[in-house]
């Protein structure tokens, strides 16, 4: 048994349908992990409303914040790069918006634009440094992580005199889009059906980002370019793919996604803090890896990352609905990561072997 190196994206359409078909899809591992974890916490958290619309909202809301960033991070990892500067760009997104509105009295939409602009600039710097020098993206973004974290603390102290900014409600539309709770309940009284309840705006933004991400990675030609870059940088460039431009664009995307998450949190909680979110760096990477993206690049799907994020959200928040000791939380996350990666490897081998023309 030797696995031939196969380009999954090109063989996707040609794959024959069999009963093993769904298992051989690249996101099968992530989907299986999701179902497993959902059943597990659904059982142990049943008597504390884990499976109700309101209960689900707590882990969906959490997942959405990580998920918005995990998708562009997934792109970068498929292209063979990493971005850990997001840990500082999340607070940056929030405080730039808060300072624009509260300290300088600007319109909130102008604040949003400035915040996106700042993030895009940092993303551009990341991309330029990675493509122009031979320094690995891990090191480059590690540097910008600390640079931005330092800027956050210094500028915020100099400009506003505090590291904890308040952001009062800035208008109905901006609240609705960025930071409010949404419910959809059909009918009234006894027969009412709760479709969803108390979902944050960020959840809907996440869905939008996932759909856009799906289009980019799996429909448009950019997707093939991203896979090609992760497969082999050199031959991708020789094939005429503008690798440098594309990579810079991907870094700009991940930085802007991080700022977007920071802004949604600031609007929702009416507060923004400069505290660097080191934990979120790992959270996004965990979601992407559990979602079946190869750390070495060249393999992954948007749907997989979405499943990975959902799974992570359940593990992270689900324990609070159970009688387990809360100190076990980290242990659960670590175990999940191991199990998911092992499961992904098994199913990926199945998928790649199915892609060969070999008949049994």
């Amino acid at each position, binding site marked *: 048994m030797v696995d031939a190196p196969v380009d999954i994206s090109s063989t996707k359409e040609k794959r024959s349908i069999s009963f093993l078909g769904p298992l051989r899809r690249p996101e099968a591992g992530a989907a299986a992990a999701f179902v497993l974890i959902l059943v597990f916490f659904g059982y142990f958290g049943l008597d504390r409303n884990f499976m*109700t619309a309101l209960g689900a909202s707590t882990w969906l809301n959490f997942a959405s914040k990580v998920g918005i960033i995990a998708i562009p991070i997934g792109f970068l990892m498929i292209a063979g790069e990493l971005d850990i500067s997001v840990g500082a760009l999340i607070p940056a997104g929030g405080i730039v918006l808060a300072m624009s509105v509260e300290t300088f009295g600007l319109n909130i939409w102008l604040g949003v634009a400035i915040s996106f602009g700042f993030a895009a600039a940092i993303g551009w710097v990341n991309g330029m440094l990675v493509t122009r020098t031979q320094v690995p993206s891990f090191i480059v973004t590690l540097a910008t992580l600390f640079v931005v974290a330092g800027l956050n603390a210094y500028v915020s102290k100099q400009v506003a005199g505090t590291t904890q900014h308040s952001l009062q409600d800035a208008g109905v539309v901006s609240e609705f889009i960025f930071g409010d709770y949404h419910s959809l309940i059909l009918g009234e009284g006894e027969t009412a059906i709760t479709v969803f309840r*108390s979902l944050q705006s960020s959840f809907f933004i996440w869905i939008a980002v996932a759909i856009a991400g799906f289009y980019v990675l799996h429909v448009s030609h950019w997707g093939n370019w991203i896979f090609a870059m992760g497969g082999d940088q050199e031959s991708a460039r020789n094939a005429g793919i503008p690798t440098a431009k594309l990579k810079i664009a991907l870094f700009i995307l991940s930085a802007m996604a991080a700022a977007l998450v920071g802004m949604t949190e600031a609007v929702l*909680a009416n507060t923004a803090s400069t*505290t660097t979110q080191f934990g*979120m760096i790992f959270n996004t990477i965990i979601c992407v890896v559990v979602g079946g993206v190869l750390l070495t690049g060249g393999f992954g799907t948007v749907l997989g990352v979405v499943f990975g994020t959902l799974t992570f959200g359940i593990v992270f928040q689900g324990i*609070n609905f159970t009688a387990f000791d809360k*100190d076990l939380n980290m242990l659960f996350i670590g175990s999940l990561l191991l199990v998911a990666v092992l499961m992904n490897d098994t199913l990926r081998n199945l998928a790649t072997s199915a892609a060969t023309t070999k008949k049994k």
Partner: protein
Amino acid sequence: MNVTKHIAAAAVAALMASGAYAQDIAVIAGSIEDAFMDKIKRGVDDATHMVEANGGTVQYLRTQNYENFGPDLVTLINQAIAQGVDGIAIPVWVPEAQIPALQVARDEGIVIMQYNAGLPVQAEIGAVNYFGSDEYHSGYGGGRYMAEQGATHIVCHIQIPGAINLEERCRGVTDGATEVGARVTILNTPANLDGDVTGTAEVIKAELIGDSSIDALISCAEFGAAAAANAVEQTGVDLMIGAFDISPASLDRIAAGTQTMAIDQQPYLQGFLATSMLFAHLRFGTEIATDPVLTGPVIIDAANVEAVRAGAALGAR
């Protein structure tokens, strides 16, 4: 996802049939890596015996860390609401984020009991009572004590910049110390150094090297005393060390004379009283006439350290 929806719908139907029958309360606290919170948990655990003996349940919810504190606390409040609890015991650390979320909880008919932090906003969140210390007065007592012991330049160390309760502590330290003629400067260390003794020791060391007039330090964090003692060991500077809150190690230092004092707010009592009194209020309709109930400050120095050590050995001090 469709399968999920069906499972969820079935679960909703099952739950609606059962309904609530006992008093369930949620106790929300800070990071699972914070030793101070473990002493609150010790009080919550002891109160849980009383709650369970009377047919209720206690769900103890904690944040992972302090990096995204406001939104994380809101998530926990929403989880408590989702779990259909009758009461929530909670400190208010980030009022802008927590007040709207707690308002939603109150609209759902959930009773709020406040402990540890946020005394100034007690009326705004409509908490039944408050069990904790008044940050300003605790700081005032500590600052005054240090100045009376002969300190002339006190550094007040804040481990989470921007946290209102910590800034109140240092405001109190400043007022208490300046009244007796000492000078106070504030030292903010980055929040990602919270709990990091070595990292914080280096910051304090730099401060001591940079300004030789410093002769005392009061840290808002218990671990800050360990960091300061570490910095003193490295620099040999003569420094009086005080800190909010205690640990077995800080009690050892006070007994050995390397730490001057600690300002205790008795977290065990906060967890125990907030949990048991919230439950008693829900189940028996009791109320405490004293409001707020202050569990601190209690100054611990060489005079009373031995009695406190006995309690610390049992995990309650």
